[in-house]
């Protein structure tokens, strides 16, 4: 903690009745409505399932979760906080404080999983692994170096790539277990984290695009090149990290497809076109289905194979502004 914390030089009382950017208001509402705590998830129901895993599978799971804990810690205590002084509106500042707090909730929730499923020794071993794994440390270091840098827009790029891309080598595993009917309550908790990260990535990416509107064309081009360079750098490291974790269980190639799929989504959150072609982003349908239960149903009328019209599933809405 050698460097001085950068703070906003002037603060006015925040007036939520005068919104400059409606997206701030919408995202605040969405984040606060999504609020959750790990204590609400019945993790102890996963104990019998945990006991069916082999020692290697348990070790892999613990390592994956310490890796995710590290990223959430980075984002909670440095990443989201570092974005506050660059805010365009006071409401944006408030949204980042919410994001920072939720990242700390995420980081703590892995400890809830650990204490439910595992012994103190296994937990300590896994945390030791996380400090010793070079590729994991490198990914945190790369992102932290941009958070410390002096470019507000580069900070947002690094932050969006963390939220929308870097978590997914880890998120893969609980989705994999869930698709095999294992650790399903843990998977429920992870899905809450994924939902939060989706809003964070969307919001920070949106603010990046707002920032781009204020710079000249040459700077925009430079930032675009920077984004793709950083993504490549992180991607290469992520591939190594994936092999470190998943080679022992033979899942690395499947995980990489999930990485490509999410790298595309991270780029889109920043307003750029996706980079990875379809033949390397065809995520295992079981994983996609664990992520979003009806996403892989190939029933869309325009998809080709679907020949029958599908009327939307019975979903009631409590909105009262419909007239029919």
């Amino acid at each position, binding site marked *: 903690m050698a460097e001085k914390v950068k703070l906003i030089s002037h603060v006015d009382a925040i007036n939520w009745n005068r919104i400059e950017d409606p997206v701030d208001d919408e995202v605040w509402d969405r984040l606060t409505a999504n609020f959750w705590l790990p204590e609400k998830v019945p993790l102890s129901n996963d104990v019998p399932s945990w006991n069916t895993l082999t020692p290697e599978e348990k070790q892999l799971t613990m390592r994956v979760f310490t890796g995710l804990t590290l990223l959430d810690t980075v984002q909670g205590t440095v990443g989201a906080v570092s974005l506050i002084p660059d805010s365009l509106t006071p409401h944006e500042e408030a949204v980042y404080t919410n994001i920072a707090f939720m990242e700390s909730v995420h980081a703590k929730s892995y400890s809830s999983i650990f204490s439910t499923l595992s012994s103190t020794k296994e937990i300590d071993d896994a945390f030791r692994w996380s400090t010793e794994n070079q590729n994991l440390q490198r990914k945190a270091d790369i992102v932290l170096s941009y958070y410390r840098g002096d470019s507000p827009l580069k900070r947002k790029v690094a932050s969006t790539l963390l939220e929308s891309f870097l978590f997914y080598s880890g998120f893969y595993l609980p989705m994999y277990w869930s698709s095999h009917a294992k650790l399903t309550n843990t998977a429920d908790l992870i899905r809450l984290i994924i939902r939060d990260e989706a809003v964070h990535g969307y919001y920070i990416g949106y603010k990046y*695009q707002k920032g781009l509107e204020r710079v000249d064309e040459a700077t925009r081009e430079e930032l675009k090149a920077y984004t793709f360079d950083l993504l490549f750098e992180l991607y290469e490291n992520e591939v190594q990290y994936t092999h470190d974790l998943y080679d022992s269980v033979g899942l690395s190639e499947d995980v990489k497809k999930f990485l490509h799929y999410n790298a595309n*989504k991270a780029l889109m959150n920043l307003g750029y076109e996706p980079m990875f072609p379809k033949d390397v982003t065809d995520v295992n349908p079981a994983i996609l289905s664990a992520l*979003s239960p009806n996403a892989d149903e190939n029933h*869309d*009328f*325009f998809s080709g194979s679907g020949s029958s019209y599908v009327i939307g*599933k019975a979903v009631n*809405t409590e909105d009262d502004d419909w007239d*029919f």
Partner: protein
Amino acid sequence: MTVVYYSSSSNYTHAFAQKLRAAGQHCVRLPLLTKDDTLLMEEPFVLITPTYGAGPRRGAVPKQVIKFLNVPQNRELLCGVIGAGNTNFGETYCQAAHIVAQKCQVPLLYRFELLGLPEDVRNVNEGLNRLWKQKLQRRA
């Protein structure tokens, strides 16, 4: 034949509509603000809507889309709905499109994520062309 879409100021769905425009589809954007007058359609159209809101049961359909569909003539001319979303929202992926399809009894034609992949643009463009052709044949 028209594609009507709603996109917030984040412009995700707008970016997808721009690509459909480039492919030759006629696309019209709903007004950004709920207080603005909505559109009155006079020919068959397909709606593209993103999903909003916090939970599965509230606020999923953008208010501007509700205002537009509250006009009976618009509902009569609605041929189908396309959802824009993100699978990271789990079971609420493209929830608004599901709700509109059910409420208006029209088919859910397609779903895509965020700005859409090139394949999505191609699938939707070709699907719309087939649909427009069917509509014209039925009229003839």
